[in-house]
């Protein structure tokens, strides 16, 4: 790891001010992506600004309409939160599948979506549930937030403060985990909103990161059942192909994971 300067601000405003002062500063939340990348010398931030201990960034609030998770809340805390489990079981379930227990004790929702790894779990929930990402500057809808591999709508220095998930009528998540890393080889989040709309997002599959799956959405809107997807054909165009799975394999996984997610959603 190259040399760096570690900062631990106690507020979002202080963090943003420190970022502006650094020549090439980076925010650190749980650190379970940034620190490995720094160890490989693929990132060499001049300053590391730790958001993980900022009190206003930690906590979960569940109302009648939404589950709001502050950005530095860990995966473990989301997975174990009683009211969140009850309001959107699929979201707590997703959090319980990320990495392993020690990773879940550190990794955070804000870090995950700000990084937007194409195989991360959370982006699929944010996109399928139509969540709103709030930052220290504005609110961004899920449809406008993800911009491709490791790219988001966040401006330089902007900090995610919370993510607000509308409570759906039904939701389910199923992933085929990479056997070593536990990242999604493909993961699919299916949602039926309270107004009857259907939104489906797949992670780990596309070359351009998390994506909606219109063919599955249309089939589920007509008939919300796993069987309704039997005849759906997913195109392999634009899907990732690597030693873990070809694009055809991933195309099939999208369908199979969607079917399992619908079954889980009930």
């Amino acid at each position, binding site marked *: *790891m*190259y*040399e*760096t*300067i*570690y900062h*631990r601000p106690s507020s979002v405003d202080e963090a943003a001010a420190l970022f502006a002062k650094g020549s090439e500063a980076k925010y*650190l939340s749980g*650190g*379970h992506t940034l*620190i*490995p990348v*720094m*160890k490989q010398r693929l990132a060499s931030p001049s300053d*590391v600004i*730790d958001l*993980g201990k900022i009190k206003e960034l930690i906590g979960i609030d569940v109302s009648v309409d939404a589950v709001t998770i502050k950005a530095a809340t860990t995966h*473990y805390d989301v997975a174990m939160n009683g009211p969140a489990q009850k309001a959107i079981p699929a979201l707590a379930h997703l959090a319980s599948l990320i*990495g*392993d*227990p*020690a*990773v879940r*004790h*550190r990794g955070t929702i804000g870090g995950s979506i700000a990084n937007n790894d194409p195989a991360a779990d959370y982006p699929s929930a944010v996109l399928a549930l139509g969540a709103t990402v709030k930052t220290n500057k504005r609110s961004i809808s899920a449809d406008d937030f993800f911009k491709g591999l490791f790219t988001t709508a966040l401006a330089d220095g902007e900090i995610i403060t919370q993510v607000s998930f509308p409570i759906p009528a039904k939701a389910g998540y199923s992933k085929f985990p990479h056997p*070593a*890393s*536990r990242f999604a080889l493909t993961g699919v989040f299916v949602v039926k909103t309270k107004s009857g709309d259907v939104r489906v997002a797949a992670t780990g599959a596309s070359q351009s990161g998390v994506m909606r799956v219109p063919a599955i959405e249309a089939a589920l809107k007509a008939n919300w059942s796993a069987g309704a997807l039997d005849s759906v054909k997913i195109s392999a165009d634009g899907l990732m192909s690597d030693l873990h799975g070809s694009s055809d394999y991933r195309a099939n996984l999208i369908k199979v994971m969607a079917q399992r997610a619908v079954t889980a959603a009930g």
Partner: protein
Amino acid sequence: MSTVKLTVNGKAVSAEVEDRTLLVHLLREHLNLTGTHVGCDTSQCGACVVHIDGKAVKSCTVLAGQAAGSSVTTIEGISKGDELHPMQAAFRDNHGLQCGYCTPGMIMSAIDIVNRYGGKLDEDTVRHELEGNICRCTGYHNIVKSVLDAAGRMKVAQAAE
């Protein structure tokens, strides 16, 4: 360089380290607590697991500065003098280790698992929860046996306190 102050195994410690120092290196190289191992150095194998404020974490993926102000427990901090922690005793009695390299991390993860699940542990849960700890000798069979055995012993020890 920064001064990092934290509690390690119940004792207040202070160390002058570079900001890029990882917690595992603070423990091993500055505090000479070499029981915590570095295996893969990529947050996968779990040999470096310690507890920060009671939760199992991979100390190769935490900056020393992030642990400032926290209470860290390592494998050296769990026995009571010569009396092994029930998890250590269960690993010894059940032959839960062969080369021993992964054992400190296994034991710290295992204590965390028992703390979280209490008496509701079964074999499937232990196997699933140990997915962040890799052992290349035992085939896991006796590790799982050790954790289940220790879960019972820890319950008895807690009841006695």
